[in-house]
Each structure stands twice: as C-alpha cells, then as structure tokens.
C-alpha cells in the first residue's frame, strides 16, 4: 500500500492501482480539509449565526 511496505515494487501495476487510490483519497481529503477549515474560519467571523 505504501512505498515503504516490504511488498512494494515500483512497477506499472502498483503505480496505476495505488496511484489511482491515493489520487482519489487526496482529492477527498483536501476537499474536506478545505471545507472544515473554511467553516471554522467563517464561524469565527460570525457567519451563519443569523440565518434563523
């Protein structure tokens, strides 16, 4: 799963399979991190507290 794992080989199969997985997980992770941090910043500025 990781290049430091003893089974890891730098071949096409590993790079394509794991590259695809980490590509997707990176987008998901970065996207959610952005949303959470921005929500915290917005909340600290008082946004969203008067919508009701």
């Amino acid at each position, binding site marked *: 799963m990781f290049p430091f794992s003893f089974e890891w080989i730098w071949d096409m199969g590993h790079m*394509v*399979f*794991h590259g*695809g997985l980490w590509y997707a997980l990176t*987008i998901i992770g970065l996207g959610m991190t952005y949303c959470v941090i*921005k929500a915290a910043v917005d909340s600290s500025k008082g946004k*969203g507290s008067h*919508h009701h």
Partner: protein
Amino acid sequence: MDTALMPEGVKRCPIWKFMAGLTPVVLVLLWGIYAMLLCWLKGLNQTNMNNAYGFALWIWADLAVIALGGGAFFSGFLKYLVGKDELKNIINFAVLIGFICYRSALLILAIDIGQPLRGWFIFWHANVHSMLTEVAFCLTAYFFVLCIEYIPLVLENRQLDRVPFFHNLTHNMHEIMAIFAATGAFLSFFHQGSLGGVAGVLFGRPFGFREHILIWPFTFFLFTWSAAAYGPCFTILITKITEAVTGKKLVKDNVIWLLAKISGWMMLTYSIAKTADTIYWAVVTAPAKGFVLSDFYTNNALYGYWILVLEVGICGWLPALLLVFKKTRENRKLLWLAVILGVIGVSLNRWVMVLQVLAVPVMPFIKWILYYPSWQEVATTLLPVAYGIILVAFSYRYLPVFPQEAELNPIDPPVGEVAPSELETASTPDAPEGDLQPAQA
C-alpha cells in the same frame, strides 16, 4: 415529541405510528444481525457456498445493489457536470439511496470475507493483478464520497443547521460538491466496470468470457453502462414507493420524467450493446471455445432460454422503449412497470454473470452445479434491505430530503386558495400522479 427535529413546512405522522410501522422491519434487521453473528462466530460453514460456489448469493446482492446504487453517481454526474439543474430536486434522495446501497455492499463483503478483522489485507497486501482489488479500492473511496454527499443533508436538519459551524460546513461542501461528484463518477466508472470485467476475463469459463478492447473485456463497459442506465430507474422506483407509503407527492413530475427519459435512452443504448455482445458471444466467442449456445441453457432444472429472453428482452428492451417514448413515459402505470422491469433486469443480469457462470459445466464430464442459499445467507442479504428501509424512514422524517415536498404538500392552504399541487394536477388532467392527495393538516 420530535416535532422540533422535523423539516419546516412539512407534516409527519405521530412518533408512535412511525415506530410501529418500523417494527416488522426492525425484526428482520435483528434476524439478519443474528445470522451475521453466526457467520462471524461459527464461520462460513453457515452458508451453502462450496468449492463450486466461492461467489454466491452475497456477491450477487453486492453486484446488484452496486448497480442499483449507480443512480447516485449518475445523477450527480448529470447535475454537477452536465448541468441538469432540475435534478437538484431528487439528488438528495439519489445520494441517500446510493449511500445505503454502497453501505450494504460493504456490509455484505464484511460478512462474506469470513474474517472481517482481516478486511484491511486487501489494501495493505494488494494484489495489483486482480480487478477485485480495484473494486475494493474504488468501492471504499466512493463510499467516502457518498458520505461526503450525505453529510450536508444530515447537517441541514433543522436543529443541527442552527449551529453556525455546521451551517457553514454545509454551505462550503455544497460549493465544491462538483469536485466530489466528479471524483465519484471517476471511481464509479472503474469499479462498476471492473465488477463486469471479472466475469469477462474468465477464459476458463466460456459462459462469462468475452472479447476484449485492449485489456478490458466487453463486460467491463456493459456493467458501467448498465449501472448508469438502471441506477436512476431504482431511484425513481424508490421515490415512487416512498410517495405511495407517505401518501404524498414528493417530487414534481417534470423531474421524474427527465430522469426517466435519460435513463430510458441509456437503457436503450445499453440494450443495443448488450444484444450485439450476446450475439457475437453466441456465434463467435463461445464456439471458438468449443461450446454452442444450447450448452448454456439446456440440460438443467433452472437455467433455460427463458432467462436470456427475460433479461435482455422483457426486462431490457421493453422498459427501455417504455421510457424513451413520451406518451408511455408519462403514463403512471407504464412508468411503474418500466422501472420495476428495469430493476429486475439489471439484478437478473448480475445473477447471470455471477451464479449462472458458476453453474455451467466447463468440462464434458462435469454436470450442472446448482445452488440454493442457506437461511443465514438469505437473512444476511435481507439485513441491508431492512437497514435501508430504516435509514430512508429516518432521513425522510428528520431531513429535508425532498426540497419540493413543502410546496407540493402545503400544510395550511389559505381558505379559497388552491394549493400548488392541485393547480398542477388540474392543469394536467392526465398527469400520472393525479391520484395522490396533498397532505392534510
């Protein structure tokens, strides 16, 4: 008692009635959990799987719910990437159904692997030569995407939305949802395809084996195409069932018809491709392996030509044509018929590609091997169905799943003023949903 948790402007039944209605479903859920624990504690000897059937009822259920849950990725693709904005009125429900389907698939896999504590092996010790590794990767990652798409709906609960952080988080997630939807479409394309690819690369089993385009067998493309085609059918079917159970109209007809039309054209093109694939397989691929078509459909008690006719014709071409033509698509009964046949058709296709593949003899001295599931397999397969019904019920009760519900079902229409849903029904006397009544206060 729980009125404060319900969405504004809609009416729900009393909590006792809600709980009473769910009681039979909870009993099925408990039965499934008992069977699941038996499988985990005693092992896979609780099933009727054997050396001939390493894949059985669970894998069929897995493939079927993944195909039926395809409505989530395809609806998201249509709304966020193609720009079909009308689908915003059903996308929440499509996501919910997708979330339930994929959660169910993962749960079934957790039972099927026998030792769920070793479930992480497929990631850590990945076999990069297996299509199923790609399926495991994409399935898991796409489930994360579905969680991300479902979370804003949960946070839009009336009470949670009062918390500024949750409100802002929901807003931010909606803003970049197109990125998540695109990621979901990417992941779905590959895992739906690879599930089909598994049967298509079995060169030792001519019933499943297909010709390839580069490294991908035809079944790779057929599975992806069929999930995109029939997934929305399932979304429409569950929406219609929810409307029937609640006695309310929840989504406007134009939204349903748009999704049905797109689904119909997808099903039609899929049926053309599937028919061409079947003919080529029957006259070229299988004979090249030493088989004729009758070898796959005779000399056994279950699998006859009827299954081919039912899958490709009655549950393939027929619903496709019903949804393609405006007149039949906008007829309430025919719409019901089309989506039910479509759902049966794709489920039957997965059954054929998982179980009939294993039943067909591959050597002259081998006979057909038929299989029936144990009660534990049946119970654990019904478990996610029960769980899905419960989650739909709670989501409908407490979350704004259907944005048009309040408009279509006004609680207190002013005296002398006609409700919008009545106006719509009155203006289209042949409207398929004309018999549904707005909720009464």
